[in-house]
């Protein structure tokens, strides 16, 4: 393939920082991963926004820190909402209360980590935006928990985190980031992949399990 180093350099000279360029390419890559996992595999996720933001947040926090924060966010949301749903109150106020509890728990968690380490000594160096990006997972989680069920929301959460981990893995490989930075044709190529996926009519991987009819014998 042809390299586009000159185009990259031109962009960087004309107001696009390398960090922004990397993030924009990351968005394209993770968005394509979401498309593939949705329409080819049949994986459930909280839309496309949550896995993209989560994958990019993990790339800033590191997977260990990112997953720890995710775990704290989900566990706190689950517990606080389980208690709050027993109290007669309006929906939005319940969600808002959930956020305030989440903030308190996260603060307490940071202090706890400061004192006891837990192998997470660099927690205080995590960029606040990455922190917030993971915390918004609470909203997606609770919304689905309320509308559907805990089981569905947990399954979707696992799907979302799984995609985010795959996305994190791909975008944090030096080999990948070096390659895409000097081969910007990858962006239109990913556009074509997504257009193809958009017209894909075949069965999803999960459908093969779902519609595995057992008509082998059986007198009923």
């Amino acid at each position: 393939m042809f390299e586009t180093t000159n185009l990259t350099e031109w962009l960087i000279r004309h107001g696009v920082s390398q960090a922004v360029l990397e993030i924009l390419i990351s968005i394209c890559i993770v968005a394509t991963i979401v498309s593939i996992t949705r329409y080819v595999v049949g994986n459930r996720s909280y839309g496309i926004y949550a896995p993209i933001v989560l994958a990019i947040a993990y790339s800033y926090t590191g997977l260990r820190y990112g997953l720890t924060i995710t775990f704290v966010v989900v566990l706190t949301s689950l517990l606080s909402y389980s208690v709050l749903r027993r109290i007669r109150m309006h929906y939005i106020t319940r969600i808002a209360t959930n956020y305030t509890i989440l903030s308190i728990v996260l603060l307490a968690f940071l202090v706890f980590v400061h004192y006891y380490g837990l192998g997470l000594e660099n927690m205080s160096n995590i960029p606040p935006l990455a922190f917030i990006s993971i915390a918004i997972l609470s909203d997606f989680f609770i919304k689905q928990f309320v509308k559907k069920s805990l089981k569905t929301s947990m399954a979707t959460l696992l799907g979302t985190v799984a995609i985010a981990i795959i996305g994190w893995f791909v975008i944090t490989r030096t080999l990948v980031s070096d390659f895409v930075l000097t081969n910007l044709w990858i962006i239109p190529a990913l556009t074509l992949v997504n257009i193809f996926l958009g017209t894909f009519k075949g069965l999803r991987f999960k459908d093969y399990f779902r519609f595995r009819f057992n008509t082998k014998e059986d007198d009923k």
Partner: protein
Amino acid sequence: MINRVVKMNKEILGLNRRNQEYVRPYNPPSAKVIADNKILTKRVLKKELIQTPEVYKLIRTKKQLEFLDWESLPKSFVIKPNKGTGGSGIIIFYGKTRGKLEWIRPNGTVMNKRDILLHIENILEGRFSMDSRNDIAIIEERIKTDSLLKQYSYKGVPDLRIICFNLVPVMAMLRLPTKRSNGTANLHSGAICTGIDIGTGITTYSMQMKKNPLFSDTYEMVDSTMDLKNNKPLSGIQIPNWNNILTIALKCQKVSGLGYIGVDIALDAEKGPVVFEINARPGLGIQVANQAGLKWRLEKIKDIKVKSINHGIRISKNLFGGEVEESIEAISGRKVLNITEKVYIYDKKTDLSKIKRGTKIKREYIKAFMDTGILTSRIDAKLANRIGYIKAHKDFTKYNTPSRFDSLKDAQDYIDKHEKEIISSTDIKRLAKIVEEGEIRVRPVFNIPIKISDNIEITEFVSTQSSENPYLLTIGRNDLKGYLIDTSGTF
């Protein structure tokens, strides 16, 4: 493996294809708006005189909720969001506490005025609505389930889902609430889905979603109802008013403008068929219930010009009735059998070539029941003994096969373990697991020549000991391929 994947791709309709080839091109946005709005649906269906649950109150604003006349609410009713999806936000009340503003839910819990107010406020705030925007709360009548289907349902209201395309009913299933589904007919919550033979309206296979399917929505086969005082086999139930139900489903399609539609119909004890809702993106679980793919069926009728509702029903019954997919090309030449038909059955040692030559052979003339609900034909053990299988039965008894099994899996395990040994020393062809008188049993299978209509064939028969079946012979689907069953004189 590759063959299986190719075969599945040919027959099964997946979400990708459903959306691209059927929902988008055949369901215009104006029609989707009707399907996604329960109030609008009721209005549109009313024009065609299609019955829907009666609306008691519509609450659009908190002000209206403030002035709701609680005393005027009946003992039993349903609250649902106008734009809800997947049954979320629906609450059913079965009764009222005497002298109090408290209503009782199917699981026995009680909701008072404050609880209900809060729930309605949540509906108004859009907590359950498709687009999370403000919604309308509907308070409507509770369907009182028809006595036949009530026997198979745990508390809630069972409903029929019929998928229609191009004015032809394509596939149907019955959804039965269970204890696990908390009285709802939602398959994801654990309701049982039972396939229906579209030709006769008789139930076939029954499936239930496995618990905690984190990876995939996988189902397992079930034989009978659960959690009821008297659990009953689910196969072979005749849905009453079947033709009328198909007609209603097609009327819904016609009036809504949806080319590809899922119609949910409940059977009310007094009103008869009542349309719950119409769906512009019906789920695909119906394929699991019927153990058959939708794709093939939809492609078959894509280009047919359907002249009327009756024409659509005739096409559907001819093409998809009696589970005759494999022999569809032979439809025009198929023979019609009555639901009970007299057949000849020949002795054990009969030489098939002698029958065909017309030599006089010992035979019995028996009234047989044609049952599309079972796969393999069945013979009463007494009749089998009469035609020469006494020794085979005695040999089978020697193996002390348990008289009942707890599950189909246990029965299959027993067959896998003992079948070779049993068939090696007896006249038994194989062993089969069957559900008989509500129990799972393993019974011997014999090869017996019979003559149905003018065809003489060696047929597999499972020997049964049912005291409930008045027929000594029951002919199953395996041996009914190529026939049309006329049920008109029976039901």
